């Protein structure tokens, strides 16, 4: 172990990893910084557990969209799927019993296919299309709930405590993360997504069926959002909010940008988003415990987001954008 050559090698590998994922360095620096500044508040098991909990909340929403952003589009329909899915579970539980929970992935799948079809065939910009979908679903959620928050019981086993201080939802999230990373890194589909994102016209000329793969991206994102929402639903207490909260909508997007993905396509992916989400969770909790008045938190998060998109877009000087 004490062989200097070997040590050098592992250091080199570490440096390589950080070069591939610059946000990793930021996460480590943030973590150490907050630990030194607030040793009695930041390094408590309670706070570390909260960081993991927040990580789960954000990554479940961010995984699907981080696949879509590699094609250059954007999917914001996850909030809508989560809200409407949650209220549909409440509606269908008397009818279907435990099987009602499967309504959420089904809704995600259908939404993904529909969004993909509209985006590809009607050529509507995806971010505004999916934002409208989310807003419409939020309205429907409120209509279906008849104005009261609805709690569904019976799925508590999903988040029952297994390991102290580790949210059980994190264990459920792992397979989803692995599937997403595997699809993007090791399959033809993932390679095609990156190709479409970096040059759609070029990918078309290379013989890739653009329309089919774009619809596939939205479908997979919708399905991931649906499956993730099952965990999210119980992770956040078996009920959903009735109004669309822009902050819940923006946080996953912030995490994707934090990971170093600029939303113009051709780069990024779920692996980067994991690190971005971790960085965001550490920063958020660190600021949260260190501030005297919480009102300024949102302002600081906004400033950090703007700063990080400027840094992430430094290589785009010659690119045309809209």
């Amino acid at each position, binding site marked *: 172990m004490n062989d200097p050559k070997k040590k050098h090698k592992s250091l080199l590998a570490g440096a390589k990893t950080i070069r591939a994922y610059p946000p990793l360095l930021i996460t480590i620096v943030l973590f150490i910084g907050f630990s030194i500044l607030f040793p009695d508040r930041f390094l408590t098991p309670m706070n570390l557990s909260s960081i993991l909990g927040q990580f789960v909340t954000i990554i479940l929403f961010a995984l699907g969209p981080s696949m879509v952003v590699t094609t250059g589009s954007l999917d914001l329909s996850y909030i809508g799927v989560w809200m409407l899915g949650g209220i549909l579970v409440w509606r269908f539980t008397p009818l279907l019993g435990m099987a009602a929970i499967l309504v959420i992935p089904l809704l995600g799948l259908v939404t993904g296919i529909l969004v993909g079809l509209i985006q590809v065939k009607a*050529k509507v910009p995806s971010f505004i299309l999916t*934002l409208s979908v989310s807003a419409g679903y939020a*309205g429907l959620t409120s209509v279906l709930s008849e104005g009261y928050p609805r709690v569904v019981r019976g799925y508590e086993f999903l988040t029952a405590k297994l390991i102290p201080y580790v949210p059980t939802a994190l264990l459920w999230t792992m397979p989803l993360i692995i599937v997403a990373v595997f699809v993007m890194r090791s399959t033809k589909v993932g390679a095609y997504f990156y190709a479409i994102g970096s040059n759609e016209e070029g990918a078309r000329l290379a013989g890739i069926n653009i329309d089919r793969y774009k619809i596939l991206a939205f479908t997979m994102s919708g399905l991931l959002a649906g499956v993730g929402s099952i965990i999210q639903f119980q992770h956040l207490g078996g009920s959903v909010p009735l109004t669309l909260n822009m902050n819940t909508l*923006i946080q996953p997007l912030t995490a994707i940008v934090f990971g170093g993905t600029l939303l113009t396509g051709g780069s990024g992916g779920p692996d980067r988003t994991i690190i971005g989400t971790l960085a965001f969770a550490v920063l958020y909790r660190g600021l949260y415990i260190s501030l005297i008045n919480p*009102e300024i938190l949102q302002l600081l998060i906004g400033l950090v987001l*703007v700063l990080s998109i400027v840094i992430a877009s430094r290589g785009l000087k010659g690119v*045309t954008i809209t």
Partner: protein
Amino acid sequence: MAQSTIFRGFQENRATIISVVTAIAIISTFQIINPSFLSPQGRITLVYAMSYFLIAACGLTMVIMMGSFDFSVVSLLKLAALICVLYIDDIGLLVIPLALLVCTGFGFINGLLFARFKVPSFLATLGMSLVAEGLALYLSRGFLYMITNRTFRALSVTFIGGLPSIFYWALGIWAVSIFVAFCTPFGRYLYAIGGNPIAASLCGVNVVKARINAFMLSGFLSGLAGVLYMAQFGGGSIEIGADMSIPLFASVVAGGTSLAGGTGGPHRTLLGVILITWTQAGMSMLAMGNDIQLVIFAIIAIGMSILTTNRKSVSVVK
């Protein structure tokens, strides 16, 4: 032969025809269901509902016809309104230039991020809207404030010829926007950039400058809408404009300004704003809830974006 001419005319003006027909259909439907819809009192309600909306929508139209998007309009409206109500007791009517200056500054940063640093416009404006919301929350701390200054309120609620003055402000801004879009080099540059930014740049248009100016204009108009909104309502909290972003966007595309850029313009936005805000007011008069209205606006937004996009001329859409 005549038939084909009519058909071609329809093809060319499809967006205009669709919005005119929809607007007339919606207004007559509400008038039939609810006979007091166009009564003098109903008219004032309708005018109040559409005026600040029209001002904000004019700014957004300028950005959309340039092929970009401005997410921060609603946040800046909120920020301007809150600046007015928070500081009017300290500095009097000087709050108006202060609010406008802050919003124009935000617009300038939006433009800078987009045009100079090459950040996609919806992402840049999304980030800045988070900053604006955070600033508004920090300044107001979530409380509700009321305005007692009568001179300030008179800006919007003085009645001239049976209609409140905010309506004439909105019409004036709308007319100026049309003038800017059609009769100034800046307006023509916006269309050129929306059609093809590279071609515009090769023709000698200073694309970076025009883009920054468009975002500054949008920020300024959002601020103005916020000031007049506060003068109209006389108070508010951080909740101002909470459900406004989807209807606002829907009103621009419903007017016939395509998200692809290069077409449409402020002259069309009036129709879209009438369509959206009158539907909103009509549904509220019929005691339909905010939630079902949101569903309907989302459907209008998606439907009109599909209808107004000319699919033959657009090759790549993100």
